[in-house]
């Protein structure tokens, strides 16, 4: 028995060195499918730029980037093309949950690794989890659950909830309600892509809520915050970081000042490597990194850390190497739960003005070692 396993180990070692010797084995081909055009392009561009920054100068990585135009059918086509004709080993890059749901299950079924730099739909964290799927960002509910916890600790009693009427919006509010112990005095689900919130603001003004908690990504959040500032309503505003990301804050301007938002990262987070990341990103691209850029950066770091330990052709060893998450995340401590989703701290940030730049600053920890509730359903 012992001899057998020894022989097996020797064979594997030989196979490993042979692979390295032929000049291809150590290299990893990465297919990045992300959103580079359309209204959601800002997120994809940040993920891509963060990833490429970490991969810069690394000759072992061969990266192909393609634009999914935020359309599930195009993302599926790109994934097929990358796997079949480009022969990529690892896929990454998808921003949106609906695209992830269309692509990830088929990618992992074809035996390829998928590292999610953004989307974290609950189905892939629970019943649909896969040994080859790793989420480096968050499960979708994480920021909301942390928001509820922070509200409990900080004396917020009456909350008005608002989100777009689509799965991620409803899941987000459900996540908040899962941890929030106060009273929800109103709940509104708006049309996806709605740009005028006068009616909702009037409802919020008329309610006796002390805080409005909302999730409106992209342009919807910009519109809401500008109109909120013009309405003169004085209530606290809270939300997940998606509505107050660096790419959006410039367009909202002073209207966003004082807003509280939960995130796993902030540019002023005092952990090793983060300040260097922020500086390197600014030097390379001439703008402040967003949390999406941080996620892209961490995704590349994770991949590089696993490549140092195992060959991607050996799926079991590479999976084990990814599971170790042996890299210095710009979020500080980072590890994977059994369902390959992060265990990480989530912070409360506040929008402030530094000189002329509107940006975020950490005001406290909202949740420590946070992980999702779906892992219990995950059987790998």
């Amino acid at each position, binding site marked *: 028995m012992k001899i057998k396993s020894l022989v097996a180990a020797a064979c594997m070692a030989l196979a490993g060195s042979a692979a390295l010797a032929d000049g291809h084995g150590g290299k990893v081909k990465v297919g990045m499918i992300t959103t580079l055009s359309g209204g959601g392009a800002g997120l994809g561009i940040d993920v891509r730029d963060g990833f490429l920054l970490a991969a810069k100068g690394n000759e072992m990585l061969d990266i192909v980037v393609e634009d999914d135009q935020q359309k599930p059918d195009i993302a599926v086509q790109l994934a097929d093309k990358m796997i079949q004709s480009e022969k990529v080993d690892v896929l990454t890059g998808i921003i949106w949950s609906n695209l992830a749901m269309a692509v990830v299950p088929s990618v992992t079924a074809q035996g390829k690794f998928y590292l999610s730099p953004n989307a974290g739909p609950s189905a892939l964290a629970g019943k649909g989890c896969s040994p080859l799927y790793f989420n480096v960002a968050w499960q979708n509910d994480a920021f909301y659950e942390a928001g509820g916890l922070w509200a409990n600790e900080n004396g917020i009693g009456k909350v008005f909830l608002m989100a777009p009427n689509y799965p991620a919006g409803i899941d987000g509010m459900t996540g908040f309600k899962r941890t929030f112990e106060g009273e929800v005095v109103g709940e509104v689900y708006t049309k996806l892509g709605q740009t005028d919130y*006068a009616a909702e603001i009037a409802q919020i003004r008329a309610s006796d809520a002390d805080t409005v908690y909302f999730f409106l990504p992209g342009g919807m959040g910009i519109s809401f915050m500008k109109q909120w500032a013009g309405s003169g309503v004085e209530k606290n505003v809270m939300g997940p970081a998606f509505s107050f990301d660096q790419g959006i804050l410039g367009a909202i301007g002073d209207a966003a000042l004082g807003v509280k938002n939960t995130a796993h990262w902030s540019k002023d987070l005092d952990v090793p490597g983060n300040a260097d990341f922020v500086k390197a990103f600014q030097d390379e691209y001439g703008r402040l990194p967003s949390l999406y850029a941080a996620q892209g950066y961490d995704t590349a770091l994770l991949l590089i850390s696993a490549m140092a330990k195992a060959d991607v052709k050996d799926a079991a060893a590479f999976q084990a190497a990814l599971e170790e998450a042996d890299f210095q995340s710009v979020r500080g401590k980072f590890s994977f739960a059994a369902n390959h989703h992060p265990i990480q701290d989530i912070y409360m940030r506040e929008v402030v003005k530094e000189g002329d730049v509107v940006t975020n600053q950490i005001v406290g920890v909202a949740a420590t070692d946070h992980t999702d509730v779906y892992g219990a359903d995950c059987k790998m």
Partner: protein
Amino acid sequence: MTPILLIEQVLNGLQSGIMLFLMAAGLTLIFGVMGLINLAHGSLYMIGAFAAAAVAGWTGSFTLALAAALAAAALAGCIIEMVVIRRLYDRDHLDQVLATFALILIFSEGTRWLFGSFPLYLDVPAALSGPVRLPGGILYPSYRLLIIVIGLLIAIGLFQLIARTRIGIQIRAGESDREMIGALGVDISRLYTIVFALGAALAGLAGALVGAIQSVQVGMGEPVLILAFVVIVIGGIGSIKGALVGALLVGLTDTLGGVLLPLFFGLFMDPSSATTIGSALASMSIYILMALVLLFRPTGLYGRA
């Protein structure tokens, strides 16, 4: 719901209707006079907003920004009419849809190339940034009141233009019989360029006015374009009066539906399913309105059979 809140919501509906009117007026004029379906109308709206944001960024003046929006959209309108649209008048609607859809893609990617993928900053002037107190104690954002006033003034101006000026007579004549006014010696291609530029300028102004309270980003015009089409179908294609009535109907239905339907379902349902069903039905409300109008008036409220 208190009467004050209801009045406030009616004002919100009016304001969104007036903005829709600025979009729909150009669209309906262009369709009525030239028989052209212009999908790129939303791009002109976007051009107005981006021009305003850029000029406001350079000069800090909101008035200049509005002027720039008008000028940029009118100029873009002139150029695309002369370069592309002119070749489409004799083609069928499918060719027009295809060509103007291509224009959307060109303008969207061109704007992204010039301004980048991140939304631009454009804010209301400081003097108008707060709310005003209306009679009855309603607090209402002063900028939105300004939008209502500007929109109404433009509506009046447009009616005067159509009813009382020489160019208005030519436009009306063009709507009824295109060949005939050409035969009567009116320079039809100049008239078409003017009408197109006028429609474009109105869309650009709407984009700039709305851009100050919404997000100035690539692709901002398309959702409004869909609503504007709903408006002109309800109002009757080619009718300015129809565009005004249709826009106000759509604005009010959209706003009040979103507020009242969840409340209505809340009377006999638990709150969370009332919210879900109410919001879902509210998103459909304007399309239901359109279907009903078409059922009883197939050519729209003021359309000619």
